[in-house]
Structure formats: C-alpha cells, structure tokens
C-alpha cells in the first residue's frame, strides 16, 4: 500500500484554495480574478475526489459526480465572467477592477 494518504491530497487542495483566494483578493486585473476563481474550484474538486476515494469507498461515486458538476459550473462561470469582462472592456477601455466602479457608462 502506498504511503500517500488522504491528508496529502487535502493539503494540495488547501494550497490550491489559498493561492486562488490570494489571486482573487490581490489581483486588479479582472481576468486574473477569474483565474483565481478557477484555482479555488480546482482545490474544492481535489477534495471531492480525494474524499470519494478514501472515505466513500469503492462502488460509490457521489464525490466524482459532484466534481463533474463543479467542472460544468466552472465552465459556465468562465464563459459568463469573461463575456462580462469583455463588455466592461468595451465600455471603459480597461479591466482594472479598481477603476471600473460604475454600473453604467
């Protein structure tokens, strides 16, 4: 049996989550913030699949099903988010989130 256990994967997920959160909090570029959101979702997904493998046991797939839904929603979020970023860019000519503080033109 391999010595790699559940905590190893949870720590990788935690690092992904923390770095994604740092990206979301400190970036000024809207696309960078969306990349941070992707990192956070990936950290959650690693946890889902690790728990599915180590805690749920064979023959049960709830964690993997959840991870697929997370991936689907991440794709939808990326499409909508980047469309909004493009719309903001067409209006303000910048995507710096410190400067785009109006909901109208």
């Amino acid at each position: 049996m391999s010595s790699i256990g559940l905590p190893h994967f949870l720590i990788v997920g935690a690092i992904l989550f923390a770095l994604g959160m740092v990206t979301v909090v400190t970036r000024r570029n809207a696309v960078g913030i969306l990349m941070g959101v992707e990192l956070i979702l990936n950290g959650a997904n690693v946890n889902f699949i690790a728990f599915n493998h180590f805690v749920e046991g064979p023959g049960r797939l709830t964690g993997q099903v959840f991870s697929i839904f997370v991936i689907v929603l991440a794709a939808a979020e990326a499409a909508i988010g980047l469309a909004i970023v493009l719309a903001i860019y067409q209006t303000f000519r910048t995507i710096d989130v410190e400067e785009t503080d109006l909901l109208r033109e």
Partner: protein
Amino acid sequence: MADVPEIRPSDPRRPLPRARDPRRNIVEGLVRIGAMLAGLMIGVGALGTRLIAGRPLGVATFVALYLALTLCIWGLNGFAFRRLPLTGPLLFLFSAAAFGVLFLIGYLLGGVAGPFVLDAVSRIVPYLKLADGVFYLFAVMTCAGAGGCAFSRNIIYSAWSLLFALLGVAGLYVFLGADFPAVAQVLIYIGGVLVLILFAIMLTKQIGEDPKLTNAHVGFPAGVALAVVTIATLTYTAVMAPWKIVAERSWEPTAGPLGIAFLTDYLLPFEVASVVLLAALVGAVVIARKEIKETSDVTS
C-alpha cells in the same frame, strides 16, 4: 583609420571595412561550439572510462582533462566574458587555474562527500516508491502552477502557470482512481476555459501596454499573510481530523458507473446543468456582443 569610410554605391560587393562579416562570425561561432563540444566529450570520456573501469586517475587522464578544459574555455570565451582577452599563453594560464579549482572540488567531492552521499542514498532508496514520486511530481506541479498564477507579474505568465496547475490536478485525479474527471478536467479546463482566458487576455490588452503592469497587485503582504493563515488552518484540519478512511480502494474505470449515476440518481441535476450550460452560452454571446447603438452614426 579613425574615420568611417563611406559606402561607395558603385561597388556594392565590397563590404564595409569596419563591420564584421556575418558569415565569418557564424563560422567562428560554429568553430567555438565545436571546440566546446569536443572538450566536453574528451573530458567526460576520459573521466568516465577511468571511473567506470575503477582505475585511479593517471597522468595521461589529467593531461587530457586539462586540454579538454582549455578547449571548453576557449569555446566559451566566444560567447561569454568576451572582454577577457584569452589568447595564447593567457588562455593556458587561465585554464590551468580553473583546472586547479575544479581538481580541488572534484577531490573533495570524490574523497569526502562521495562516500557520505552514497551511504545516504543507499539508506533512503529502499523507502522511496515510484507511486509516491509520481504523486509528489504532480503535487509540486500543481502548487508551483498555482503559485505562478497567484504571484506572476505578467498576466500571460499567470495563464500559462494556470495550465500547469490544471494539468497537475488532472494527474492527481488519475492518482485517485477518477479517470473520467481527469479527462473531463483536461478537455474542459485546458481545452475550454484556459483558451477562453487566453482569448480574453489578448482581446483586452492594449497594444503598447507594459505587460509587467497588466497584473498588478493591491495589498500584496496582506494577501500573502492570508495565504499562510489559510494553508496553516486547512493543513491542521486535514492532518488532525479523524477521517473515517475505508480500507479498500477501487481502481475500476468510473466512466460507465458515472453515466449510469447521471441518468438514474442524478437525473434532475444533470438536466438542470444542461439548461444552465445552454443559458450560459446564450448569455455569454448576448453580453459580449458589440452593442449597436441607435446613434451609431455619431462617432464618439
């Protein structure tokens, strides 16, 4: 001849007297690269055959190594440290000094550090497993990618780091016996989301914009502190919590059972997800489309 002579248009074949011939430059560079390669081959060959045969290094080996080092330094001088005029006896003096330094380092490594390192490696190797190494490879790739994404100064580099983070996560999925999520990760994240992000970056970058400034941070120390606190807390939880870990592992392919689960137990979420995807795609097109205004004839 201090003044630069004019180029006579009547004689275009004659090159500029002061400018170096590019073809000669290339030839000289090739010769120096060849010298470097030859030196390397001679040195590695002489040292390797002696060490593999287990015989002590003789005088001939040292002479060969010295000549190889001289060749290497002469070749390297064509590209680096061009200010150093390493020609003639100076070259041999310089390479002798370098040879002495290298000899000392090699003697120390071979006589002192070598047995110690061999002993340590022979103690560590039985505890290493290939699977663990693969896990750590993927984990380091994921964390390094995430770190690059979080801390890079250039947004393009951030996007490429995200590629490595996503690839590493896909590898971890394979490691956890989740083959379908791994493939979905590669297809959707790398093939879809990352391409979208790269398109968005390129569509929103202004030409002439400094790429170093496109990814600026606010409150960077606070962000790093936040990361440290989060990682510490979650790591403490992950290590200390009494997880109920089942004993048996399954490495069966999960694509078939996942499809059955989606069409039986999770049918409603599955359909809702498809509707969400459709709405998201239509919404993205509507939002990102260029709006044609009523007063479009007035150029603003």
